[in-house]
């Protein structure tokens, strides 16, 4: 597979599939690399390349910490200008509302850490919601188990497709469409009211004054952070996202890692679906999780996790989800149309992706 000296011409299509080791024409050039300047990291004689606060450094600072800044600004604004903002009831409401998004976004963050994306999370929520009333006859916990297993199954399909070479965006787009369809078929297209104390507690109960959905989201976040820091799986995930050919050549189980991460995302989406259903006291497969993939991806990206993979920011993701929620709340409380919130969110995501632009490779 050795490529010709000097690489292939610039206008020649080069294989872009990073899953094929040894097919990297641009980088097989040796010392004279006509496709661009020699990367700084391989300049002989320089042992430390330090430019933490150049132009790129400032942009990367924005990407890493911008979400905290924006959240701070928005909180201050609301504290000053929004009546009844700083009440326990309001803060609790905001947190409960953001919990499902946060849970889905945490799964999304792990998927994005492998350089992938999961568009099917909203439909997975809908499948979980649709399954609950069908199995509630066996009791709440069996029903929840079935819903969560369904989420795992969706993840297995996604992960299997991705592991065997389908692009993540395509693989999960299929289930975005098919999953919602399946949910509507399961529920016969109807909204079903649910009166189950266990589900209601999961969706709206409290422990020590803290709403259960919020506790669930926090638990998931702590678990995700622990897995990323301490578990071998976390290292594998970041290696697969950071440099997949290298992970393959290091003998890591790349496919198994990919499948696992999509299964995790599916399970978390199903949990969010259960939670939402419980809070609404209704299974609503048409609207449960609709467009949540966009909120989740936004939360992840705004939180500083690069779309290219190789790095995951858990706290940032939580803050990103919170920021998105707060934007909607602010807009609503100031009697603006909620499409205003969408435009602000759009501006923020564009800024976040722009801030990520320069940081690939370091």
């Amino acid at each position: 597979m050795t490529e010709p000296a000097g690489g292939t011409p610039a206008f020649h299509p080069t294989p872009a599939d990073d899953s094929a080791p040894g097919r990297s024409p641009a980088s097989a050039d040796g010392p004279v690399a006509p496709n661009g300047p020699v990367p700084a990291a391989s300049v002989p004689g320089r042992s430390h390349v330090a430019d933490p606060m150049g132009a790129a450094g400032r942009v990367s600072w924005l990407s890493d910490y911008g979400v905290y800044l924006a959240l701070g600004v928005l909180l201050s604004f609301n504290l000053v200008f929004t009546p009844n903002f700083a009440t326990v009831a309001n803060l609790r409401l905001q947190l409960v509302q953001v919990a499902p998004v946060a849970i889905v976004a945490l799964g999304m963050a792990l998927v994005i850490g492998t350089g992938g994306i999961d568009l099917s999370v909203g439909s997975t929520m809908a499948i979980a919601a649709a399954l609950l009333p069908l199995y509630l006859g066996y009791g709440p916990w069996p029903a929840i188990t079935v819903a969560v297993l369904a989420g795992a199954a969706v993840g297995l399909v996604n992960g299997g497709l991705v592991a065997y070479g389908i692009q993540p965006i395509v693989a999960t787009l299929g289930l975005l469409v098919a999953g919602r369809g399946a949910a509507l078929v399961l529920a016969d297209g109807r909204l079903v009211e649910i009166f189950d104390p266990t589900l209601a507690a999961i969706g709206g109960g409290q422990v020590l004054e803290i709403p259960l959905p919020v506790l669930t989201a926090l638990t998931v976040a702590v678990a995700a952070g622990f897995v990323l820091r301490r578990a071998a799986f976390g290292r594998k995930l970041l290696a697969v996202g950071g440099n997949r050919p290298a992970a393959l050549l290091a003998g890591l189980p790349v496919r198994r890692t990919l499948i696992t991460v999509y299964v995790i995302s599916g399970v978390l989406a199903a949990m969010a679906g259960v939670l939402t259903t419980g809070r609404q006291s209704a299974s609503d497969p048409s609207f449960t999780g609709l467009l949540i993939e966009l909120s989740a991806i936004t939360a992840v990206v705004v939180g500083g996790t690069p779309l290219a993979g190789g790095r995951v920011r858990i706290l940032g993701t939580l803050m990103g989800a919170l920021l998105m929620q707060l934007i909607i709340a602010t807009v609503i409380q100031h009697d603006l149309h909620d499409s205003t919130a969408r435009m602000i969110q759009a501006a923020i995501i564009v800024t976040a992706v722009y801030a990520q632009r320069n940081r690939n490779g370091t």
Partner: protein
Amino acid sequence: MNEPVCEAHAISKRFGGTLALDQVSLRLAAGEAHALVGENGAGKSTLIKVLTGVHRPDGGTVRHLGRPVSFSGPADAQDAGISSIYQEVELAPLLSVADNLFLGREPITRLGLLDRSRLRREATEVLARYGVTVDVRRPLGELGLGIRQMVAIARAVSARARLVIMDEPTSSLAPREADRLADVIEVLREQGIAILYVTHKLDEVFRVCQRVSVLRDGRLIHTGLLRETSRIGLVAAMLGRPVAEVRRHGVTSFGEAHEVGRAAPVLRAESLVREHALHGVSIEVRPGEVVGLAGLLGSGRSETARAVFGADPLDAGSVEVAGRARRRWNPAIAIRSGVCMVPEDRKAEGVVPGLSVRDNITLAALPRLTRGGLVSRRARDRVVDAFVRRLGIKASSPDQKVGELSGGNQQKVLLARMLCLHPKVLILDEPTRGIDIGAKAEIQALIDELAQEGLGVLLVAELEEIVEGADTVVVLRDGTAAGVLRGAEIGERRIMELIAAAGSDGSVGGRFDD
């Protein structure tokens, strides 16, 4: 010599700090096939890109058909009569052969509509001239690569090309297709077309071309008629070595030969076959032995190294480790059975730039450092400390991201990643390429030391490193082993003779494809 079609005069081109072309002149004459050869990074592609208007030269001029020219891009160059045929031909695979042939200059009827019958007739006629008989209505993508290439050439010529540039045209062709290409080039020459033929294959140079130019490190080393050029002279020019036997010592930091003795091979690879790359290469590595792979670019050195590690799928062949034959073979299994590799392309296949030095070193060792799914911090830090010290990895701390280190230190991290697995065999593909002299010497000394401790090493490297560092040298040519040299037999002259030897007679490995 015939009139020149295209002349490059004193072309220089700089990319950042590197001079890719340094005052290179080339004269491409009508009816002449001109071979352009050189190793990796010699500047061949850059020169082609200057000729076809992709790059603007920093110095020098290009004259085409007697006039100085400055093309704005390949399309512009093509209009002026310079066509390029690339390895993987760029045509529209879903369009028919005839459509591809006449893309952009289709015959039209008086009504301005496409004249389909004339298109088919002319396409069939044109291709027949190149000995291609296919149904021109078939989509191009359904046809073999050889035929696609013929269509590309026919297209170039019918677009009135005066110069056809072919960049490794045979790299993915079957031998029979390559023969046909040679015939077609003959036809082109009779029409007075100049051909610039880039290849790594010596046999092709001598069979197809009349004149040769050798580039090395951006400079023109040699240009002349092939009937006045010896094969060994050409090899020496490409490798930048004098033809005379000079076995210098102390150029590298390798020591003397290692005690290999008669131990049974720890690694035995038999008849490795991979389409278009390897045609039955066999390799044996004993404990404590450094086996070097020598050969020109494209001769199958990296391909052999990767095949032995299981990095690329094989079409045939077997790998045996410590006497145990393996049916399934991939990097994970190779690592578990004690065969490790540091790949050639550090950036693309080696380091995970966003992870720390610590995580990069322990990446492959993760399964061994994990208890109940969790990484044992103490075991991990012990490994990292030991190897950072032993290899002298210069990082501000083990937490520093590998992407911030120099090339040499990144390479050491990759070595540590594999050495901490305590391998029986270490495959090193160009371990000292692109790193500074100090790190280079350290890595050479390390390889030596590891071999003395009993590690078997399979080394792909520059000729001088192979000559000084290897106990056994397998010389590769066109994906076959052209010869094996041991101990005192090893020398630059001997290796270059084997590389230069014509054809596949006398080769050690069998050729399966012809």
